[in-house]
């Protein structure tokens, strides 16, 4: 009977299950922030930090990215020793940097270097959002500028993986000027015929979106990555209007013509090496 479909289900108070409440043992198990499924960390790593059940892309540390991207043993890091100073004598800034260095084992929010992807040599910069939210100060700008210049010397392409909350507030105008600096060096690189690819990862916002992240010959992104210029909350407060759920996601940008392609992480290495091969030339004679 039709009315059977409308039988009221008994309502229960939802009590979190024992399983959900259980602490996830650090290091061995990982709980997906999207679908809450628990996975073995080893399995997750083998799956390139993509949730097997819902496809959620876990943010990667810079070195995790380097490890899954480059041919084994091919990566050579540039300028690892560079560290930030405190140009505005901003109180607490140096302490915050110290804390993040300790937390991440990184000296700054970007790792640069060169390596091989399926045999194709390239220069790469990988941002790490754990360090000061991946914000761009003088060091991030300088390391990126230097890596582009090195690519120009070595006649190699540049791939930048972006992940950034924007400009580094504590460095004031100097951080705004890093947008101009990186864009200016990219202009020189582009005029020289250099190939520049960006892969925007979660999250790419503010001054990084408004400089090198958007300037690729190819602009790619990982699925679900948050990408935008202004913050969602600022926009909501300004226009007092509900924003679509997928607002500022990679898929939203693709729909609006701002990206070339959204590439799942497990296809990234293949796609990047194909792009590099197309730019290498060759072919039948």
């Amino acid at each position, binding site marked *: 009977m039709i009315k059977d479909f409308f039988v009221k289900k008994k309502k229960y108070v939802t009590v979190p299950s024992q399983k959900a409440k259980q602490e996830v043992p650090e290091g061995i198990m990982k709980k997906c922030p999207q679908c809450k499924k628990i996975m073995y960390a080893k399995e997750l790593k083998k799956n390139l930090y993509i949730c097997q059940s819902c496809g959620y892309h876990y943010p990667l540390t810079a070195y995790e990215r380097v490890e899954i991207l480059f041919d084994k043993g091919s990566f050579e890091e540039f300028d690892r020793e560079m560290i930030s100073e405190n140009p505005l004598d901003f109180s607490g800034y140096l302490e915050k940097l110290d804390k993040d260095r300790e937390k991440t084992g990184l000296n700054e929010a970007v790792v640069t270097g060169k390596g091989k992807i399926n045999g194709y040599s390239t220069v790469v910069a990988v941002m790490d959002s754990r360090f000061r939210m991946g914000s761009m100060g003088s060091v991030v700008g300088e390391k990126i500028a230097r890596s582009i210049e090195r690519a120009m010397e070595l006649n190699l392409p540049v791939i930048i993986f972006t992940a950034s909350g924007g400009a580094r507030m504590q460095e*004031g105008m100097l951080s705004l000027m890093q947008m101009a600096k990186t864009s200016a060096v990219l202009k020189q690189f582009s005029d020289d015929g250099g190939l520049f690819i960006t892969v925007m990862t979660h999250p790419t916002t503010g001054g990084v979106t408004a400089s090198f992240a958007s*300037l690729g010959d190819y602009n790619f992104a990982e699925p679900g990555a948050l990408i935008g210029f202004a913050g969602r909350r600022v926009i909501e407060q300004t226009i007092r209007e509900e924003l679509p759920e997928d607002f500022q996601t990679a898929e939203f940008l693709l729909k609006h013509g701002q990206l070339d392609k959204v590439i799942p992480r497990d296809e990234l290495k293949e796609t990047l090496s194909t792009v590099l091969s197309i730019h290498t030339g060759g072919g039948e004679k």
Partner: protein
Amino acid sequence: MAPGLDFEKPIEELKEKIRELKSFMEEKDIDLTDELERLQTRLKELEEETYSNMSPWDRVQIARHMDRPTTLDYIPHLFTDFIECHGDRLFGDDPAIVGGIAKFHGHPVTVIGEQRGRDTKENLKRNFGMAHPEGYRKALRLMKQAEKFGRPVITFIDTKGAFPGKAAEERGQGEAIARNLFEMAGLKVPMISVVIGEGASGGALALGVTDKILMLENSWYSVISPEGAAALLWKDSGLAERAAKTMKITGPDLKELNIIDELIPEVLGGAHHNPEEQAKTIDQYLWDAWQDLNPFNPEELVKKRLEKYRKMGKYGVASDFTHQS
């Protein structure tokens, strides 16, 4: 007369006293000339004292004064034959940025500037000087046109920032700004910008990658507005006054940091006290900058511009790495 700002209150009060005294003298026909002179001397001293000891926050207030001259207020004083050109040829025309062709001291020039309103109605039309992508793309179109015809570009920066909105994001606000930085870095003509009011973040920089950056004494230029900085750094936008100081955003601070090239003095109390006089000073500084850039050929200009931005930034070396080299 422009309404006074908070820190100008003592001046306003003294001026009022002088007015009262004058009318009292006329009414009662009593000679109080000595007293009047004393007050007038005191006023002069007070003005000098107040305006030579302005805090960064005082300057921010002047930069935001509703009577402060805007791009379109300066253009007729600085240029002749100005013809405004509209539209980005891609989407629309953004009234938050104006641009066109003109003559400067008789020479062809392209003029582009951010344009806010001076009252609510005009501000609504101009979107408070906060541009959408089509604004930056219009600016870029005009710059490329200037390059084609070999004429210099002068830009005026006056914005609370790029507009944070849904449509702006959909049309690629980040890309539009980034593209301007990229193209301006390689533009083969002399470029000068003048910060005339507020200069917030990427929205300001999108007109600011130039050979010479001039800045009015009471304007500010920053990675973020003082309110935004305070909210982000200390979770309290009420601490904007402190942020204005800490973030080093005023002309004198930025000159010291070598971010800008020239600081343009303002008429006593700020440009709004005498826009015409202010325009004369801007004209002098612009003409000097113009002549400074004159000897360089296009390749030299681009090279010098790249070198200038390439040098921006301060960094060090980790101490545990110093033994390596």
